[in-house]
């Protein structure tokens, strides 16, 4: 870009005294209204810390106060809230720099939370803010700049910068960063892209400067369309600047404790990662092989769980593209280093065809969603789509799952070339997939239809093309309006619940129970499954309250984890759970937190609050926890027959139905009746374990017990359940 000064007219300015971060908290949150230009500091009191902890908890609490039950994603009062939590910004322990973002989702209409790497959240806290909430719709394109070095927040007119997340983060670095690597890594931005203006599945890109590679890297808050909300607000970027990060910038109560716990964990990763998943050598790409081996890899819109050509999407096919052997953490001190990078990739399609660009990723979800689920067994096509999704600001998971859905609709005759505007969207057609993506970037053609997400597409295809709504409901892999992430849950009842019950919609970051349930049979009864569907969602929620990444919890384990503990305990990785108690107490100094159950308690408060938040937005009850049947069992004859032995046996031994002499259609119907009844029993068991009513709402006693019985919360729940 040129060096001429950009037209950065200051629209609003707010000056503040930089507070010291003490025990993981800056003690205030930042409110910015890009519509009317108001900027304010809001205090964080002890009650807020003890009830909502931070991160996702702070996000939801601030969002709850900003919106009403009538607020829609594009209403001015909707907010984007970003918070890292008290442990966020810790440098000694791997995976402790996450930001958690929340908004009312364009796809679901309820709150979505997304956990993302990059430096923004920690730098925001070190700039004096535990969270930023951005409200309003700007009258022109703006940048919100938080200058933590000078104590100034500005809303700046930004007519000249790019919108896309290929050029814009580098422009912002040049504008707001300095010349040295240390000055550059003091800046982080949140951007989206032109695709997010046209589709509902827009993502956010969070940046960090890579001192060795010499360019800005990106991590995505992918789920739920938060990028769409950012662009609706006419915000090109949120930028934070804070220089001089140190080991104790987070103001820990007991630095020595953090040192000991962190150094021990780094050593464990050094020793164990090469023996386990080798994330340092390939990120999450190793998962494709495991999922294919266990028949869990989504193939052709989740119809099947494996494919002979899946080997073309294994880690071995991506690893040669990665630059390895240097740090790949998305925050300081993450030695698990899963944020892989392709430094030079030549694009063959789209506006940058022929250019060589860096690609961040791909992650497993992108490979499985855009690759296997669409039958595209071509790593270069996956890399190309990964790049353009990030550049356009589009979530790779929703894009992959939605594209797989339209490909099945195409093959089923619901769609054809005429209806797709000329795109031959059969499974395996990489060029059509890429053109669909470019249409989203340009805002034209069939891309605009697919970009609305599966829930809306189902209605459109039924209305315009006379497609059978029941079939669309069965094969459309969304729940609550959010597209499924990339695991086949058909043979794991617990994981069906893990997806169906997830507060924001079917994302695996709440529960991943397939191995415990289906492969290792460790949770055979409904009570066992309900216990797992209480513990693990609460445990995983805790990471989002604290600015943590889930991966260092169980994607690496102590060498003796499986011999020192019985299997169900080993699945919790007890030594790492103790590390997290150490970390929390080491940072916050809280004397009331002593054992793992105290961490779970923090999550229960926020998780139940989020459930009630769903109710506030018109969902949050049992009917919204029912997934599409494709996630529970075989919809089509081909699906049934691909696993006929398994299904016949289940009919005979579990449902007490003799499959002999029955047509496949009859067997599908019998299996379906059995499995749907099982799912209802699972809901009953989980609701009881969580202290919820049979309709899936926290009881008043549960709200009181958790200390979230605020008058408006109680009134809302009471109005629904009576009493």
């Amino acid at each position, binding site marked *: 870009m040129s060096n001429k000064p950009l037209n950065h007219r200051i629209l609003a300015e707010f000056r503040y005294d930089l507070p010291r971060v003490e025990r993981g908290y800056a003690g205030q949150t930042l409110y910015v209204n890009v519509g009317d230009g108001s900027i304010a500091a809001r205090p964080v009191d002890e009650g807020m810390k003890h009830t909502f902890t931070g991160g996702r908890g702070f996000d939801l609490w601030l969002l709850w106060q900003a919106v009403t039950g009538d607020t829609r994603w594009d209403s001015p009062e909707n907010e984007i809230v970003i918070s890292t939590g008290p442990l966020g910004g810790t440098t000694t322990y791997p995976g402790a720099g996450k930001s958690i973002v929340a908004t009312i989702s364009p796809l679901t209409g309820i709150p979505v939370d997304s956990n993302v790497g990059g430096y923004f959240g920690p730098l925001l806290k070190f700039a004096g803010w535990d969270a930023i909430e951005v409200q309003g719709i700007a009258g022109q394109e703006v940048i919100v700049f938080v200058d933590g070095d000078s104590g100034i927040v500005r809303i700046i007119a930004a007519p000249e910068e790019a919108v896309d997340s290929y050029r814009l983060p580098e422009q912002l670095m040049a504008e707001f960063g300095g010349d040295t690597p240390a000055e550059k890594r003091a800046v982080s931005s949140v951007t989206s892209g032109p695709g997010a203006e046209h589709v509902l599945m827009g993502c956010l890109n969070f940046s960090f400067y890579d001192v*060795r590679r010499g360019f800005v890297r990106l991590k995505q808050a992918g789920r739920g369309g938060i990028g769409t909300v950012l662009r609706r607000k006419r915000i090109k970027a949120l930028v934070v600047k804070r220089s001089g990060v140190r080991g104790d910038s987070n103001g820990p109560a007991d630095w020595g404790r953090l040192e000991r716990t*962190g150094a021990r964990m780094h050593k464990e990763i050094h020793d164990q990662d090469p023996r386990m998943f080798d994330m340092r050598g390939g990120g999450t790409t190793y998962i494709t092989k495991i999922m294919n081996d266990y028949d869990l890899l989504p193939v052709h819109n989740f119809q099947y769980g494996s494919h002979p050509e899946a080997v073309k999407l294994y880690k071995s096919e991506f690893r040669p593209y990665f630059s390895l052997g240097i740090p790949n953490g998305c925050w300081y001190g993450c*030695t698990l280093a899963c944020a892989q990078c392709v430094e030079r990739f030549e694009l063959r399609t789209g506006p940058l065809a022929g250019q060589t660009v860096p690609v961040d990723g791909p992650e497993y979800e992108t490979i499985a969603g855009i690759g296997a689920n669409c039958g595209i067994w071509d790593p270069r096509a996956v890399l190309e789509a990964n790049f353009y999704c990030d550049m356009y600001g589009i979530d790779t998971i929703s894009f992959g799952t939605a594209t797989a859905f339209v490909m099945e609709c195409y093959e089923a005759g619901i769609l054809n070339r005429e209806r797709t505007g000329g795109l031959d969207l059969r499974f395996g057609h990489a060029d059509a997939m890429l053109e669909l993506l470019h249409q989203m970037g340009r805002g034209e053609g069939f891309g605009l239809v697919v970009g609305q997400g599966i829930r809306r597409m189902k209605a459109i295809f039924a209305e315009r093309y006379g497609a059978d709504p029941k079939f669309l409901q069965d094969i459309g892999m969304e729940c609550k309006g959010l597209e499924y992430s990339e695991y086949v849950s058909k043979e794991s009842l617990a994981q069906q619940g893990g997806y169906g019950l997830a507060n924001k919609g079917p994302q695996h970051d709440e529960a991943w129970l397939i191995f415990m349930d289906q492969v290792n049979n460790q949770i055979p009864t409904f009570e066992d499954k309900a216990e797992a569907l209480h513990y693990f969602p609460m445990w995983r929620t805790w990471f989002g309250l604290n600015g943590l990444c889930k991966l260092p919890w169980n994607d690496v384990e102590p060498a003796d984890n499986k011999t020192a503990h019985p299997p169900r305990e080993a699945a919790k990785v007890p030594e790492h759970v103790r590390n997290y108690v150490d970390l929390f107490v080491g940072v916050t100094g809280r004397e009331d937190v002593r054992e793992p159950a105290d961490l779970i308690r923090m999550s229960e408060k926020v998780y139940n609050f989020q459930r009630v938040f769903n109710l506030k937005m018109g969902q949050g009850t049992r009917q919204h926890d029912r997934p599409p049947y494709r996630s529970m069992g075989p919809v089509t004859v081909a699906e049934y027959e691909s696993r006929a032995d398994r299904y016949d046996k289940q009919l005979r031994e579990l449902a007490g139905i003799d499959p002999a002499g029955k047509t496949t259609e009859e067997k599908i119907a019998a299996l379906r009746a059995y499995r749907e009844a099982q799912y209802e029993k699972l809901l009953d068991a989980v609701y009881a374990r969580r202290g919820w009513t049979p309709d899936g709402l926290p009881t008043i006693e549960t709200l009181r017990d958790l200390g979230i019985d605020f008058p408006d919360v109680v009134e809302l729940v009471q109005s629904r359940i009576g009493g």
Partner: protein
Amino acid sequence: MKVLQFDPTRCIGARECERECSRTWFKEENRDKSAIRINQEDGRYAMVACTQCGECIDVCPTMAIRRDKRGIVRIDKKLCVGCLSCVGFCPYLAMFFHADYTEPFKCVACGKCVETCPSGALAIADVPDAPLTKTEQRLARGEA
């Protein structure tokens, strides 16, 4: 490059080296603040101290660890963010930390301990340069 070397047959376990090291760099006698540690294993003495192999250079996220002109691996405290990645990834467990400081510390082959060793068990030796690390290769190519 210069490296601290140890002769276990000469060591008598006096630990003068540990005291001298912490005095030199931290102005107090405290084994926990020494960049050289003498351990006794099976009746023999063993030294833990940096070999200047440079593996830590490639794990430091801020490039705070570099090799100087003499081949000594050094930590730039201004750039260090206290993550201790280098501590966990040192193949010789020779990168140390202490609760009084946010930066780790290591042997820089200053030779003070050599002078104080009563039995001549320590020496500064000139050994062939270690192979370039990934980071150093990038620097040499002008890529980092």
